[in-house]
């Protein structure tokens, strides 16, 4: 497992030596370029036959479409849904792209039941699930540039820039489908769960390119939703990480500074907590962010409050670790030591609180204690303790992981209508 694979948007012209500079082109197509009717029929069939959560043949075939084809499909679908929803005259004749038909004839033309077009929303939601699955399960496994816009991104592993990537067109398409939900996406439980699950998936994968547009778009659907505000704050907190900032600097990416990201994150976490004061994960992260911004007393207060209701071991560990850090910054060394000690008790294999305890000892000139703290943990074989420190996964860990949210989304959708 690579812990710190990062994808951040960048401009092609800013790439430096050693990094792939050729723009990613929307090119390869495995299907013949389709006229609009067979294209929609093909897509409707794929949406209907697709099993959510699987890279089945339907997902693979649609995943091979180019950006141009998806754009054309999107235009056709928008036109189609607008007509079927607004027009009541089933016999009115339309001419669309040189095809003449009435609304009454449309279902037969497209090979679906009339109810499929009339109800609309389930089809759009199912389509969003299909395209999310393509983005998550099909396109990432492809070595080609299928599913990409010309947008550039930089990918980095282990802190090193390893190549370029692209922004996924299937995310754009899926969002466009949900944009057409009636009365609005904000009224759809499926759209909300879809949003939470897909954002979580991007955050876990450190896909900060798709993540940015995804979050901004979804935030417009759910402007006061605590969970989505939290995820948005999480995103900005992650972008403040030194490795992300360093990679961005190295490709001259105009990424806001760590301080700006942290400030944005603190505000988003605050708004999330206004919407839901019990969102402990937001409180823990807000505490850390405030400390990183130098607001140590506020950070301490927030983390103390967060600790009160925490049950999850990871969150408790984070809270103790961050609270210790805040106390240390405030010069409250005894309190800091207690916090780090509790973090050790929660995760005995973790090296971060031991390092913190060691540094505390070293601050007071106690070199022997400083070394002793390290020797208690750092002399163990690396493979035995390789993933024992939750700090290492802080920027990808979520209380509700993507796999759980995606499973909930798929189960919920398959169980029945969302509204």
């Amino acid at each position, binding site marked *: 497992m690579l812990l710190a694979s990062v994808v951040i948007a960048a401009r092609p012209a800013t790439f430096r030596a050693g990094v792939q500079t050729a723009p990613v082109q929307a090119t390869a197509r495995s299907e013949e370029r389709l006229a609009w009717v067979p294209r929609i029929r093909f897509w409707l069939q794929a949406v209907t036959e697709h099993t959510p959560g699987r890279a089945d043949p339907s997902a693979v075939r649609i995943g091979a479409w180019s950006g141009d084809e998806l754009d054309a499909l999107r235009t056709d679908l928008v036109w189609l849904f607008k007509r079927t929803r607004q027009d009541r005259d089933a016999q009115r004749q339309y001419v669309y792209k040189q095809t003449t038909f009435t609304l009454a004839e449309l279902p037969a033309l497209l090979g679906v039941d009339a109810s499929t077009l009339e109800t609309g929303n389930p089809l759009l939601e199912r389509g969003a699930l299909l395209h999310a699955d393509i983005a998550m399960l099909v396109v990432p496994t492809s070595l080609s540039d299928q599913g990409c816009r010309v947008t550039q991104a930089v990918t980095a592993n282990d802190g*090193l820039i390893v190549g370029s990537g692209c922004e996924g067109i299937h995310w754009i398409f899926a969002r466009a489908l949900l944009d057409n939900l009636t009365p609005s996406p904000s009224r759809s439980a499926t759209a909300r769960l879809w949003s939470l699950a897909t954002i979580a998936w991007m955050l876990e994968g450190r896909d900060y390119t798709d993540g940015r547009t995804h979050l901004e778009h979804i935030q417009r659907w759910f402007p006061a939703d605590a969970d989505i505000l939290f995820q948005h704050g999480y995103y900005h907190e992650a972008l403040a990480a030194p490795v992300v900032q360093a990679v961005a600097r*190295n490709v001259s990416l105009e990424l806001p500074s760590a301080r700006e990201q942290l400030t944005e994150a603190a505000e988003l976490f605050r708004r999330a907590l206004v919407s839901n004061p019990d969102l402990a994960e937001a409180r823990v992260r807000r505490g850390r962010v405030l400390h990183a911004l130098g607001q140590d007393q506020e950070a301490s207060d927030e983390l103390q409050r967060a600790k009160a209701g925490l049950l999850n071991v990871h969150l408790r560990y984070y809270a103790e670790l961050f609270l210790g850090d805040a106390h240390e910054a405030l010069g409250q060394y005894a309190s800091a030591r207690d916090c780090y000690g509790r973090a050790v008790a929660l995760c005995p294999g973790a090296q971060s609180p031991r*390092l913190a305890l060691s540094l505390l000892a070293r601050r007071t000139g106690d*070199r022997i204690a*400083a070394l002793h703290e390290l020797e208690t943990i750092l002399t163990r074989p690396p493979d035995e303790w390789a993933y024992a420190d939750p700090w290492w996964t802080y920027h990808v860990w979520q209380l509700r992981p993507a796999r759980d949210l995606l499973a909930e989304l798929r189960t919920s959708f398959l169980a029945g209508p969302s509204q």
Partner: protein
Amino acid sequence: MTRLRMLCLAVVLPLGWLVPEPQSPTFSSRIEAVRIDVLVSERNVPVRGLRPDDFEVFDNGVRQRVDLVVFEQLPLNIVLTLDMSASMSGQRLEQLRTAGRGVLDGLKKGDQAALVSFSHHVVISAGLTPDIGRVRAALDRARPFGDTSVIDATYTGMMVAESDAGRSLVMVFSDGLDTSSWLAAQDVVEVARRSDAVVYAVSAVALAKADFLRDVVTQTGGRLIELDSTRDLGAAFLSVLDEFRQRYLVSYSPTGVSKDGWHAVQVRVKGRNPSIKARPGYFAGS
């Protein structure tokens, strides 16, 4: 081009420490003697044969009497702090191992070595020991995986170095940006200001500046070598060891200065104008 610099190491230790015998850890908060680790060079060539009277040392601006100067007589403690993250697999790993073995082979009787290997996980693979074979075996066992915690590892390397009162060199190598350290860079740089170890760093980070390592070596009087690749690691490691051995240890008992806080130190050589770059000072009692 390699630039020779004057290295300055300040240690708060009893004067009796300046005897080239193995020492047990002894730490004192009293300023009995300050040891300045100095490399003097002219036209990139180390200047040899200097005596106590040749040095001028100023502690917080107050001229001090140099008691003792030692050159090439003291055993060395070297703490190899090596990046074993995933990016160091294959040929790079072999180049790193070869470079590390080269340093270990260059140690003399009485010298000690240690190995701190790191990915996101920091491991004291071998503590300071005169048994160089043990360190060599630990180097051979280390396997690359995971991310990079160069800040945590550098701190650990300094702590291992401080476990013995000997003359300590921490040699840090990394090929990546820090991705997973807990400790803050500025905290570790602050520790470096207070440490008696000298940190040399070799960085092979493509497309990035090793800002943290540069700060640490500056505070300890060491040097940062930036490489384009790991191909020249062996030569870089050996140049560090060679440079470290070309240093004077200049000792004085501070007089006319406070016993606490930060002491700015200046070192000069009378009647000459050699290249001198020194650790900027030391913290009394740290």
